[in-house]
């Protein structure tokens, strides 16, 4: 079952779907196979042979009615230290060229905003964060890279994210972090959850010429 709200990337819409998913799980988790949050949607997986669709629809409506408009949830605040540019961020130059700015400007813009985790997807632990300043948010790369290293910080189409594992990827890689969005041996393997607020901070890159 797919529950759709007006398709918008905004905090209120997303906060509502995050809370709706939570509320639905609280009401009938044991009878649901999975609940997945999108930017503006909730998808519920269930077994139609053991659960009546009409009943589930009524539960979803009741869960939604129970949400208070104003009660936007506040997620965790997470700081992500990033080594921008160079080998860590091979596409920083391209993004700067797209923006008509210097690399330092792109770094300053990317690291000055607070981003919201709207949803998780793609691979385990990958968080879709938005909204990236449109000046530094080119569309996806024409052809995806075969291998993007784990920890790569990337931007595309108004979003930013961190690759949890090495995979192919079509976003522009501007830096790298040592934080692990997915770590199977951590108490909570997932660093990010929908609703979290994320800031990127600049790690000075040691230059070959020693301390400056």
């Amino acid at each position, binding site marked *: 079952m797919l529950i759709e709200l007006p398709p918008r990337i905004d905090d209120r819409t997303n906060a509502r779907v995050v809370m709706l998913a939570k509320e639905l799980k609280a009401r009938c988790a044991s009878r649901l196979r*999975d609940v997945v949050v999108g930017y503006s949607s909730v998808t519920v997986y269930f077994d139609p042979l053991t659960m009546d669709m009409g009943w589930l629809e009524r539960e979803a409506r009741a869960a939604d009615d129970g949400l208070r408009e104003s009660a936007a949830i506040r997620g965790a605040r997470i700081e992500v230290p990033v080594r921008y540019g160079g080998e860590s961020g091979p596409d920083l130059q391209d993004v700067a060229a797209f923006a008509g700015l210097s690399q330092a400007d792109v770094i300053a813009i990317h690291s000055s905003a607070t981003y919201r985790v709207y949803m998780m997807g793609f691979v385990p632990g990958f968080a879709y964060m938005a909204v990236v300043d449109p000046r530094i948010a080119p569309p996806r790369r024409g052809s995806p890279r075969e291998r993007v290293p784990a920890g790569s910080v990337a931007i595309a189409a108004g979003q930013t994210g961190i690759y949890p594992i090495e995979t192919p990827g079509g976003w522009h890689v501007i830096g790298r972090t040592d934080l692990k969005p997915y770590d199977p041996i951590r108490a909570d393997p997932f660093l990010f959850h929908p609703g979290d607020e994320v800031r990127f901070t600049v790690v000075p890159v040691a230059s070959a010429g020693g301390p400056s």
Partner: protein
Amino acid sequence: MPALVVARPGMLTTVQDLGRWGQQASGVPVAGPMDAYSHRLANRLASNADDAAALEVTLIGPELVSRGSLVCAVAGAGFSVALNDTPIDTRSCFEVPDGSRIRFGSRGPGARASLAVRGGFDVPATFGSRATSLVSRMGPFGRALREGDELPVAMSAPRVAPRGKPLQLPGGGSRVRVLLGPHDSMFTADAVTALLSSRFVVTPQSNRMGYRLAGARLERRDETELLSEATPMGSLQVTSSGQPILLMADRQTTGGYPRIATVISADQPAAGQLAPGDWIEFVACTRDEAVDALRRQEAALAGAGS
């Protein structure tokens, strides 16, 4: 501990159970078998629970050597299977004495078979599942099996389940039922007609994640960019070039392409038996028909009727 040892891995042999459910909200793919019906049937023939870990074998099967005596069962694609070079009847389970060699040979209809062993494979679980996701490299090996891999076998009390009928295997292609949507209204009427009246072919660019289909271009009338949302198995997503991709077991959890239709659960096993070069046709049905088809399939698996 008894085990199966991989002597030759075959083309693509993976450990699968019924999938890693419950973590998709964190981006963890479900994975699991391409043909869940045959996975469950193989487990039932081996007196296991439906979700025990078994091997999924693809197109060219493996060669396996037993350590300790085992009881195995095979369901799905029509492979010839030999035990120490003697062909065996795969309609029921078979005993595998210590040091025996199980060899998959020529393949009849279907693309994938499940090999279950009584007790199930005792390999580590991640988030409660032993399914292998090739893309996120999750699961007991995090990859397809290789020569020398050892698969320990758990000892457990056999449960006797009624044996169901084998899946009707596609001979060169399959006609599957779909529910239109959720984004069919974003496509032209011609595109919907083409989807339901023409034949598509599974291209070589197809794998456990999904089948890229060749055939009619499915044109959109509404070019609005969609926001990413969950992508269930059986979704027919359409790329910007108009090519449909049928999302299969190892799909990502979410995606942003419009989905013109979804293959119903009861017909996903048949889709999972297709190989590159096979044809596929889509027929629209209603939600009630989809649930009814699933109910009848469950009855067939439970051995009801004949």
